[in-house]
């Protein structure tokens, strides 16, 4: 591989309007790795996910973020998606009237068009949907309903992982995927993520609690505090946090 690093973030500064939230983030993710980003509320975890995926609410002040060598910042969000970035939303929105099938078909064929590939035929597409659905045990009925409409919290998160399975991203960012999940749903969602893991793709797990990391084992754990990564380490760092809470981080960084 020419570029060993899947994601390279250097000096990323961003915020909402004039309010700076990310104050210079550096992060390198290589293929096959799972990174966890942890931190107290308001530290900038979701902002980081939003800025990488191109959420228009955020303004980028400086820095760079390359995915597979391609600069993401400044690129429209749909192209970042085509380049292989996937965001599992903390709060997936409902889109009434648009069936999951039509939605995913539009998404898959938009990506194929971007990559100069022929659109999938209806039968090929439906076959793929069936296969991918099994990964997160998503009911056929859910797939034929409108996007997230009337889904329970757990169903919404499973639906996110289902979409991830269909789009086969290089880098997935799971933003607080464990929030609002009971233990069974958590197991299914985490199981889906683990099944999709290969040595070519990578995952960034954003979470507040250690709980999810019992199911999705991280290779690296980073602690984000006040818009900066203040600590990086192995999986043991998450356990340490679980034991001590975030206060020692806060004290160290006063």
């Amino acid at each position: 591989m020419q570029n060993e690093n899947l994601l390279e973030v250097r000096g990323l500064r961003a915020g909402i309007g004039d309010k700076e939230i990310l104050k210079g983030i550096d992060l390198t993710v290589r293929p096959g790795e799972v990174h966890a980003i942890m931190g107290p509320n308001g530290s900038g975890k979701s902002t980081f996910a939003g800025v990488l995926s191109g959420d228009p609410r955020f303004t980028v002040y400086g820095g760079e973020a390359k995915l597979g060598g391609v600069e993401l910042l400044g690129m429209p969000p749909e192209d970042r998606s085509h380049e292989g970035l996937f965001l599992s939303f903390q709060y997936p929105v409902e889109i009434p009237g648009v069936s999951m099938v039509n939605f995913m078909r539009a998404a898959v064929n938009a990506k194929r068009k971007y990559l100069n590939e022929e659109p999938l035929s209806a039968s090929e597409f439906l076959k793929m949907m069936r296969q991918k659905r099994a990964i997160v045990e998503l009911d056929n009925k859910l797939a034929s309903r409108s996007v997230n409409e009337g889904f329970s919290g757990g169903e919404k998160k499973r639906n996110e992982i289902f979409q991830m399975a269909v789009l086969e991203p290089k880098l997935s960012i799971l933003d607080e995927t464990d929030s609002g999940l009971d233990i069974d749903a958590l197991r299914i969602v985490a199981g889906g993520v683990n099944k999709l893991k290969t040595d070519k793709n990578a995952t960034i797990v954003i979470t507040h609690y250690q709980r999810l990391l019992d199911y999705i084992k991280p290779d690296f754990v980073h602690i984000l505090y006040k818009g900066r990564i203040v600590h990086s380490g192995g999986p043991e760092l998450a356990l340490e946090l679980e034991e001590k809470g975030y206060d020692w981080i806060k004290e160290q960084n006063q």
Partner: protein
Amino acid sequence: MQNCDNENKKNADILGESDGEYKYGFVTDIDTDIIPKGLSEDVVRLISKKKGEPQWLLDFRLKAFRQWLNMSMPRWAHLDIPDINYQEISYYAAPQQKKEGPKSLDEVDPQLVDTFNKLGISLEEQKKLTGVAVDAVMDSVSVHTTHKEKLAELGIIFCSFSEAVRDYPDLVRKYLGKVVPATDNFFAALNSAVFSDGSFVYIPKGVRCPMELSTYFRINAAGTGQFERTLIVADDDSYVSYLEGCTAPMRDENQLHAAIVEIIVEDRAEVKYSTVQNWYAGDKEGRGGVYNFVTKRGLCRGEASKISWTQVETGSAITWKYPGCILKGDNSVGEFYSVAVTNNRQQADTGTKMIHIGRNTRSTIVSKGISAGHSQNSYRGLVRVAPGAEGARNYTQCDSLLLSQTCGAHTFPYIDVHNDSAIVEHEATTSKISEDQIFYCNQRGISTEEAIGLIVNGYAKEVMNKLPMEFAVEAQRLLSITIEGGVG
């Protein structure tokens, strides 16, 4: 789904996948017999004479004309309608053909066949969408009707209005003006005086029409109006699904289209009437476009009869139409499903009238308004329950989707109930597309434009699903094209 794919491709081929501009704006350069501009009794007589009509029909026209002279244009709608100079319009324009009217397609001017091909309407039966018979009307005359013989075997009459007057005068005379009287309103009176052509359908007792019947209306000549009339009669225990489509060239001037559709449904019969209206809407600044002032009404005369209107309104500079049902027969059913999309400077005031007269009559109204750009979009609906309409039921759902800060959506429901046993429900919502929904779609790789198309089509799905499959795909495309550039 595979079928749908092919259809999609086919329509895309026809329409040309480019910039979403109005694809039907071309003009066919063909010799046209146009009578001089102006409207008078002499003009009415001239039209009748050109069509070789019997005296009774001339009398019908003249009576309507004399009454029209004493009427004035309705101003109650939420529309800004410029004054129309009725003396500046030509009331009859016919593409030149052999005198008798073509018997087979070989005799139809190839240029006309080409024109309809370009519009995606093939007049060659073997190439046609299977299961659809078409009457193609250009300006004031019917060009060709397909599948006539096959339908005739079942006793179904499907022909141009002029032919019906000639070949089935008793049927036409029996039903003409019975649902929409000549004096019903200003535009109906005008149409009754000068109507040129249109379609006539008769489904005999107990016959289920095996294919969709469809009329395609095309305005071509400049400075003319189009005044067609459609009359559909469904005898006891019969069924027909009928569809009309319309387009016109792009012109800076406004063109007037004032049509009448009358439907009569006898005992236990059902008529499903679908419209995909895509007259030229004018340019972004509101120059040009068709004034679409149409009176459509159906009479459920028979017991347990049913009329279902489905309309997808995307075109026209100004739309004024209220397809209604008079539910006279006991247990009769009226339905109205509408999607009206307006963009730029378009104005629409559209809805329905459900008049409950018979016992246990039921009506359903689902109206979906979509407004973009600087357009104004109004729903206006009347539900009336007469004193004798024991057990009448109505359900109305009226939704508005706003796509810009500068458009307007308005709802004017009229409910007039004279029987205590009636149950009338009205639900209304107003919504817009959120930035979160757009970003969610973007993150999955769907561009903003495509996302809006998906969401708008999803919003309109309940109505689009009522369209015959052959036309649903084209209608979906039209929705997406119409709203382009109007969001924000």
